């Protein structure tokens, strides 16, 4: 408990604001729901990177990703990445929801997935797969 004591100009001392000790009850939830959200985000990022590289490496894939002509292959790559992200979350969440996991392991896996996804979206990387 802490008090803010104010000494007024007329010499009076007043406790202007008094902080009272209060209790906050927190009911802990298993971390599985968070783990599922983090891993599926990592998976979505990975798929985005993989599809960016695949589209560069394969003309057939490049053409297949052309879901919307005005947008070009980016339409297919982004739609499929979001579908992979949502689908993986839909699969992982019910399985992991009421369980708890070693979060350090989850973080390492997510870091690898996101890191690989970032590398896959980097032009200097995916251009390595471009046909001669």
């Amino acid at each position, binding site marked *: 408990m802490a008090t803010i004591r104010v000494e007024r100009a007329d010499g009076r001392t007043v406790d202007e604001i008094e*902080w009272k000790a*209060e*209790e*906050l009850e*927190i009911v*802990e*939830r298993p*971390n599985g*729901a*968070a783990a599922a*959200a*983090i891993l*599926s*985000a990592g998976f*979505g*990022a990975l798929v*985005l*990177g993989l599809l*960016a590289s695949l589209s560069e490496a394969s003309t057939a894939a490049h053409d297949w990703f052309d879901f*919307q002509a*005005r*947008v*070009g292959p*980016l*339409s297919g*790559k*982004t739609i499929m*990445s*979001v579908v992979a*992200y949502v689908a993986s979350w839909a699969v992982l969440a019910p399985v992991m929801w009421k369980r708890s996991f070693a*979060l*350090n392991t989850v*973080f390492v896996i997510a870091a690898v997935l*996101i890191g690989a*996804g*970032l590398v896959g*979206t*980097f*032009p*200097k990387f995916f251009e390595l797969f471009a046909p001669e």
Partner: protein
Amino acid sequence: MEVSNRETWAALHGMFFGAIFLIAFAGGLAGLWSLRPEWVTVNGIRERMFRLKVGVSVMAAVAWVTVVTGTWIVYPWYRAAPPEDATDLSKYPRSLLLETPGKEQWHTFGMEWKEHVAWMSPILATAVAFIVLYYGNQLIVDKKLRYASIVLYILAFAAAGVAGALGAFITKAAPIL
């Protein structure tokens, strides 16, 4: 002074949504960082948690709106192919960059990276928004989850930052008219 439909959408995509994104990120990050038991009172937690939930939700929603408008509204104007006999490429930014010596890399590197990496942002921001909305006050005592959320949140911002900065430079080199 006249602003075309294309310029309006480009400004909405890059500046308006970008500004909301920045504000929401700053609020969300400050909220996540200061969510420590030694710094907050019960009343403070209630006020802070509401602000945090709004901040992370708005950031995730705006990130989705930004990439969707960018990809499906603005990007087609950027990549539109000019007619074969076109001599003025000013309305075809992609072709203008590729045909202008010294500017090719704004497309081959800049736009190629921007159009992909930007999509990381809403995906990562959504994970953070979910964690904050679902776990709420538990983040005060669950340091690991809070720190993980902060890292994901910063990564989401960094991805959007790369895309936003490249977008600004590309627009300067070849604006969408």
